[in-house]
């Protein structure tokens, strides 16, 4: 559906490129977790995927059309929930009536259901709501548009703890086979049990682009074990409850994926991680 080919981009000509030949394919029916440190370019990549920023080299195409052309037929297939945004000083109902007309598959019942899930009520002035509430309104609207591609930039920033759980529930209920959702975050715990595919950005390249099944078939994640059980670990960390570690997975036995640990490992030993997925441990 969305195809990124050899993406090169730099904010300043003299500095290292923020993206240096990124290739990525976004397919329908999956939730993608776009992970990376602060300032690594996650938001920039999402803006490029939605056509709001232009690559210096390479191309980003949605169903074969360059997104940077910002054609209405392309824009109506994409919804971006930015990290920071302003909503107009109108009621929720007016906002929905005036904006839903641009999205051919918008479903008002779904929108109402998401509002209920978020425990939100209608408001007469969206501009006066808190950032967390604005996020919840926009996420509800975004999911109800039923655009094939939904991009969310740090969607859980500004949300309180119950809202983060509600967010997971809403994303789960709003997902279907025609959609793909890309969620960028540096708060990796917020994505736990929600994503199908992990993409880690680091040093201008895509360090990892793999589905969770592939990751857990290559790597075994253990928690709260003794030091002896971490022998041969690729990555380990001592916690109060014992050791948490990433081990090679020669048997392919499935273990629960710990995204935070994977992310820390990727940042600590990027070359090792790439080697593992290029030449899987057998």
């Amino acid at each position, binding site marked *: 559906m969305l195809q990124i080919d050899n993406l090169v981009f730099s*904010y300043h000509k003299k500095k290292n490129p923020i993206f240096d030949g990124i290739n990525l394919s976004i397919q329908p*029916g999956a*939730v993608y977790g776009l992970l990376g440190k602060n300032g690594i370019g996650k938001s920039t990549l999402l*803006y490029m995927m*939605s*056509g*709001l*920023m*232009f690559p210096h080299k390479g191309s980003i195409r949605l169903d074969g059309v360059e997104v940077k052309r*910002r*054609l*209405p*037929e392309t*824009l*109506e297939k*994409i*919804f*971006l929930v*930015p990290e*920071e*945004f*302003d909503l*107009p*000083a*109108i009621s929720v109902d*007016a906002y929905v009536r*005036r*904006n839903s*007309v*641009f*999205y*051919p*598959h918008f479903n008002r019942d779904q929108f109402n259901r998401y509002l209920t899930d978020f425990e939100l009520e209608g408001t007469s002035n969206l501009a006066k709501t808190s950032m967390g509430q604005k996020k919840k309104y926009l996420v509800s609207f975004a999911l109800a548009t*039923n655009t094939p591609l939904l991009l969310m930039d740090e969607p859980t920033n500004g949300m309180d703890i119950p809202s983060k759980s509600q967010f*997971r*529930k809403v*994303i*789960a*209920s709003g*997902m*279907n*086979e*025609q959609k793909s959702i890309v969620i960028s975050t540096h708060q990796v715990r917020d994505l736990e*049990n*929600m*994503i*199908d595919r992990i993409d880690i950005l680091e040093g201008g390249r895509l360090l990892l682009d793999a589905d*969770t*099944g592939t990751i857990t078939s290559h790597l075994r994640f253990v928690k709260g074990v003794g030091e002896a059980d971490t022998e041969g670990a690729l990555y380990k960390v001592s916690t109060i409850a014992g050791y948490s570690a990433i081990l090679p997975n020669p048997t392919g036995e499935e273990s629960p*994926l710990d995204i935070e640990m994977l992310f820390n490992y990727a940042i600590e030993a990027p070359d090792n991680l790439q080697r593992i997925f290029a030449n899987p441990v057998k």
Partner: protein
Amino acid sequence: MNDYHITENGPATTIASKHPATNNFFSPRRFGRYCAKQIHEWKRGLLLQFFSLAGIYTILMFLYHPSDGEAPAITSTGIHILIWFGFFIYIAKSGSSLAEQIGRRSKRVLYLAVPASTAEKYIAHLLWTLILYPILFFAAIIVAQYASEIISSSIRGEVFNPGTPLQGMLTVWNDLYSLSTIIVWTISNIVTFTLGATLWQKNSFLKTIAALFLLGIIIIFFYTIFVGKAEFGSLFTYIAIGNYFENFKSIDLLWIINGVTIIESIILGYIGYMRMKELEINETKR
């Protein structure tokens, strides 16, 4: 592994297959929706502008009210000058208002992401400035016209004589040249300040005025250097009745100036459109 269950979305697929081919440059239906969305989002701000303008001009007309109390304030030359001056400033400021939609990153994201073409967004802005804001301005003047008369009669005890709506202001319709000049200069004003908004998003209005002022100085500088005319005041005389145009009547020349202004407006309008097309999210967070 994941919490969600795949739910079929059959109807959406059916709708997609029946969806007609999209006109990606200009669709009247989509344009109408875009305009309706903007009006709805701005209505509070527009009302505030309307009442502010009506209030300011009520005070001015009250202050300029003829002492004999027989003629309505709107017929005074001073008020006419203030109204036309205010009109051009207001229209220029409205042209610059595009900067408010695309200035801050948090607003620009949602502005650019709306599924309407750049042409529709650009034309909508030009139309608002050309039609909506002038209507709003003159409606406020009419309100001020009546309100100032009510205040004058109740405070000063003068005869209540508001006159006809916009009395004395509509003489431009009697003269094709005046009418065309006002329209052409209004359009030129709009496209120039809209272009300014695409170039500078912070203090767009003031920066555009400064740029025009600078441009004026440069033109005069080159004129005095290369054409050899040292006297500042001879500029207009030279153009209007000088060597090159001595065969023209001055009214013919003014038509030429109108024509040149139209061409300039088309060029600046096109540059503004291209700037909008190439508009990206800025680097800084805010």
